[in-house]
């Protein structure tokens, strides 16, 4: 069983690696120093199945989970989250992102990208991603439906404000048109490797990854803010967390302006506090997800409530479609 049993320590489920290093430096190191609560790190933050399983078998060892919109939707659908009393917390740039179970702590995005050598003209919209005649080449995405379903509808002419409730039949029909030209990866890392190796010409992926590939110089990669899918990263507490009070304290600590600033500096993500966001200059905001500078008519956020209600069915259909 987890280390959360010990008094004065919490277990945080994130994504390991450099991300974990960054979160540790920005959030937990100062947090531990100030409160004396030790933090243990688990890297299964994206392993929804495992967390749901853990909760269902009443063996929760985690106190704090780092969840993006889609995971949040899955957690909510599974009913494994502890309601959070967020009344005391305020100053969010986008208060609508706060849910009964979660507190937003930064925003990131997934963007359309392309290899400049293979797609000289670049992409201007989701419609371009679906236009295999004009733009040939292997498309690459992570095999998760969130955002992709919406993207298919946008490519098919649905406007962003009319997306929900999603017209699944129409979306999958559109998806059928790129099935054979698309590779779905099980993880961001795999997608990143395939792009770096030049096997993927264009696609849709995590902006931080895209930037990192571009910076490495492996392939000339470019991206657009058009059609970017914004995702709010949320902190949640699972039901049965061994040390719920300390987990809540950590959430409050994460919303301190200096922590928010540190996260932005280390990861390049958009702080969720309005005050911090307002303090940035225009050049800094020009390449941050969720700012006005990068907003376009095709930018959107997935509807967590809709997905929490319908996610299971979509996933099933997504699963079937992938194997169709």
């Amino acid at each position, binding site marked *: 069983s987890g280390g959360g049993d010990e008094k004065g320590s919490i277990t945080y489920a994130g994504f390991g690696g450099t991300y974990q290093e960054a979160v540790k430096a920005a959030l937990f190191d100062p947090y531990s120093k100030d409160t004396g609560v030790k933090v243990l790190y688990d890297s299964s933050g994206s392993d929804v199945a495992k967390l749901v399983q853990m909760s269902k078998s009443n063996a929760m060892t985690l106190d704090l989970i780092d969840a993006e919109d889609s995971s949040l939707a899955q957690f909510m659908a599974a009913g494994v989250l502890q309601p959070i009393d967020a009344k005391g917390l305020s100053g969010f740039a986008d208060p609508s992102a706060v849910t009964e179970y979660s507190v937003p702590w930064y925003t990131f995005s997934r963007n359309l990208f392309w290899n400049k050598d293979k797609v000289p003209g670049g992409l201007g919209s989701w419609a371009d991603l679906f236009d295999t005649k004009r733009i040939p080449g292997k498309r690459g995405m992570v*095999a998760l439906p969130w955002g992709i379903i919406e993207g298919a509808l946008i490519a098919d002419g649905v406007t962003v404000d009319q997306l929900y409730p999603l017209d699944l039949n129409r979306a999958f029909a559109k998806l059928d048109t790129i099935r054979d030209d698309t*590779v779905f990866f099980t993880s961001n890392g795999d997608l990143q490797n395939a792009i770096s190796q030049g*096997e993927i010409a264009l696609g849709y992926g995590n902006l931080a990854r895209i930037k990192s590939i571009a910076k490495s110089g492996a392939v000339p990669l470019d991206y657009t803010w058009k059609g970017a899918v914004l995702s709010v990263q949320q902190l949640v507490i699972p039901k049965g967390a061994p040390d719920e009070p300390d987990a809540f304290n950590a959430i409050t600590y994460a919303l301190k302006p200096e922590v928010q600033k540190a996260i932005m500096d280390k990861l390049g993500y958009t702080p969720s506090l309005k005050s911090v966001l307002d303090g940035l200059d225009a050049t800094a905001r020009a390449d941050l997800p969720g700012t006005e500078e990068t907003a376009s008519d095709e930018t959107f956020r997935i509807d967590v409530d809709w997905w929490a209600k319908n996610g299971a069915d979509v996933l099933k259909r997504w699963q079937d479609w992938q194997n169709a």
Partner: protein
Amino acid sequence: MAGLAERVTTTPTSPDADPSGPASRTAGGRRRRRRGWDLGGVPAVLVVTLVFVLPVAILCLRSVTEPTFGLENFTRLLGHSGYVDNIVRTILISAASTFVALIFGYPIAYQMVHGGTWLCTFLTVAIMAPYLTSILLRSFSWLVILGRQGPVNKLIEQFGLEPIAMVFTPIAVVVSLSHYLLPLMILPLAATMRSVDDSRMRAATSLGAGPAQAFVRVYLPLTKPGIQAGSVLCFVYGIGAFVIPALLGGSKGSMLGSLIHSAIKQSGDYGLASAAALVLGALVLVIVLVFQRLTGMSTTELAGRSGPTATRSAKRGGGRALRLAGRAAGGLDRLGVTRSRRLPKVLAAALGALVLAPQFIVIPISFASTQALIFPPVGYSTQWYAEFFTASWLDPLAVSVRVALFVTLIAGVLGTLAAMGVVRGTVRGWGASTSTLMMLPLLFPTVVAAAGFYVEFERIGLVDTELGIVLAHVTLALPFVFSVVSAGLRSLNPVYERAASSLGARRTVQLRRIVLPLIAPSILTAGLFAFLTSFDESTVAIFLSGVHVKTLPKRIFEALSLETNPTVAVISVFVMVCAAGIWLGYALFRRLTQTSRSNS
């Protein structure tokens, strides 16, 4: 399954293997005293049943209870042409990979057995080194090699041909999968080849058969048990593959294993996953049964003996084919192309080098200057080597080594005992069920098992403990230990045990002084397998690792899927160097002791 495993218990060529009948029944009373060996299987059976079968069975129940009670998952799976195609593709890819592994593995195994010390050492290193590199990283290497800008396509372009799209097609999956399966093919092959008597080949030659013809007509049939064992093993293992198709297959090369994996990992759809797992298990079972019906061999009968069973199947199956092939080989002999003694060695060495190819991709990557897996790297640095020597990597390495050592020990002892029980035991039904049970963890997709472990281990607090991982890995390593040791035992003439018995050795003494030393090569091989199975295992480790215990493959998994951290390449280089060092040292040691013995 019982029918096929039944053959395991009868050693057809040993003089006292009475066929059943009224006779042996009347003598039932006096046979009891030799039943001691049968107990050997008990501990292994208990472990497999409690640790593996129970959790997996509970999980499989979910195929009819989730989301609601009924056959919904099965109708979904079998009523959907996409899934059915997937099943068919899974079989075809696995069969093709097995075939490729056989074509590559046979010449290599041959030289490992008959070649000189150095060639043998080189080949062993070549075969084992990839095994020491995480499957995830190896798949990446194949992505590079087979990719659009990879060396293979470069070569093709040299000839003025269009580059071939291999990545994200079944081609890449077959190449990579057969590479992965190669050791499984080679080990039983080498074991059988070792038991082929020199004088048989001499006899064939003296009777007028040229090298190729003697090979086709005599050597090949005598190694048939090894071919069959290796093929079944590869096929069964290949059919449950998921990492390779997921990374290299694209939608055209997707396999059932990756479907199960994604159903669990992405959708938490245990119902569909366990239904698919059951379908996969049934598939393996049917194919294995059909195979055995045709060849008269059992899965565990990995090597060793070319008894009447094998022979009859040879006659039924390939007698005429062998004759035809023999005629073709005779043509080659007359042309003289088969006379060279060097050619097979060169061929095997070349194949060995080819097998090592993915490793060479890893070395430059380990010196990359940026945090990305790119080949060739954009710049060079040694920073990842520095990172490797930090707790972030050394701790998981220590955990993996420790776990693997325990697994080797436990699985080695349990598997050897079980093999003794089955091969030397006399209670027919028991031996049959033991061997079936021993092979189950191999036949069942590991993803499903991993999920099963996770659910049940959670209940009793074994998740995130080394004990939990050790127990799970023991069940995964047991099939290898069991089958390799069984093969060794089966090829051991029982007359040695009789002799020892007549000289006053009790059964335990026979085991310790005679049997174990004589099958030591098999046990060492089995131990190596057990170690590597555990050391390289990522699926179960990903489920069972946690905050406190993290194995190296789990760490590698994180580094690849979350960080794209080139330190994964460093670890591969490190392990490779260690393995090569150990092998070279061993070969040197053997050479030295040999010369010193002949000098004295």
